[in-house]
């Protein structure tokens, strides 16, 4: 009987790690920091936010303020709705839309396109909505959910702010070229994965 208990205990111990280690992006880190890192660790979010930020920053300091504030407000709203109603985009749809935004913004960055305020605000709004609705955490409740969604808001806004600042501070010719090259990289990465997603859907 004692041996049977030991055997059972052993099997339980071996079975436990799969339960606790598999669900969060980084174990051992609290919900808020996991939220902050969420836009960085989900490549589709990272590409969409960074390319939108580079595009907004390329427009100069005067024209970047309103789109950035729009992004922040819409992101807060989308995360609030997501948290309150557990709304979530289907995984492949969310990724495809985010990658489409990344392709669009990447092309505009690579071609150094100057845009008026309306399209910039539209891009900021769509990007924030997609990031917010694609950051659903239905498995979490209460304070943990609030912390991770707050973290996602902070992380998402800091990311777009840093990307925009990097593009705005790029005054020398080679720095501007570097920003345009980053735009082309974002477009290339996102476009290939979009093609892959379409091909996978076609094969199903």
């Amino acid at each position, binding site marked *: 009987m004692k041996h049977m208990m030991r055997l059972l205990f*052993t099997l339980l111990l071996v079975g436990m790690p799969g339960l606790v280690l598999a669900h969060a*992006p*980084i174990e051992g880190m609290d919900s808020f920091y996991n939220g902050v890192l969420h836009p960085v660790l989900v490549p589709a979010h990272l590409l969409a936010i960074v390319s939108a930020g580079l595009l907004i920053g390329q427009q100069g300091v005067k024209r970047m303020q309103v789109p950035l504030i729009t992004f922040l407000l819409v992101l807060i709203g989308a995360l609030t709705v997501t948290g309150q109603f557990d709304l979530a985009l289907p995984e492949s749809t969310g990724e495809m839309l985010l990658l489409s935004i990344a392709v669009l913004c990447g092309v505009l960055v690579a071609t150094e396109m100057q845009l008026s305020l309306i399209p910039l605000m539209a891009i900021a709004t769509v990007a924030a909505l997609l990031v917010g609705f694609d950051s659903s955490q239905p498995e979490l409740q209460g304070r943990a959910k609030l912390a991770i969604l707050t973290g996602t808001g902070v992380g998402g806004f800091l990311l777009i702010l840093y990307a925009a600042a990097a593009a705005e501070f790029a005054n020398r010719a080679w720095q501007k070229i570097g920003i345009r090259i980053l735009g082309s990289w974002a477009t290339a990465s996102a476009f290939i994965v979009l093609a892959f997603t379409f091909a996978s859907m076609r094969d199903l």
Partner: protein
Amino acid sequence: MKTRNLPLLAVLLLLAVTDVSAHSAEGLAGGFLSGLMHPVLGPDHVIAMVAVGLWGAFLGRPAIWLLPIVFPMVMAFGGALGVAGVTLPAVETGIAVSAIVLGAMVAFAVRPPIWVAAVIVGAFAIFHGHAHGTELPNAANPLAYSLGFVIATGLLHLCGIAFGGLAHWPAGKVAVRAGGGLIALGGFAFLFGLA
């Protein structure tokens, strides 16, 4: 084995499990690293990518920035063909020929109009993109893989641009043209299976 040793075994197994259970981060890092290494571990890709940067630097502005912007975007088109299962004839031959042509352009100091240079580089980018794209479905995280190989490609261009910067000096120009010649020779070696 006696059952009294089982708890010890359990602890050892627990230690072993931590390496494989964090699958989301590992998939991300693994996908990114395999993408990053794919162009770097293929010497035929390496010499052709360096040649793009080298030729861009040799041609000066605006080619120095236009070619590294055009290349990844057209490469993405080739990659899309690859993941969509569209077969492209003689991909490996195209990659070897890209090294020969681009290397020769530098070696012989060919200075075509910028649009001609962009078309030549873009045409070869399709072959490179196709080769990377066909590997994408096997990647642990396709998007991280694609980011990795695009960044690696860009950094290889940068290596070429940095070396091409020597062309500002007369002796450096000779070194850059010699580098182009070596790249072309490397391309021939890949084409005829000598490397």
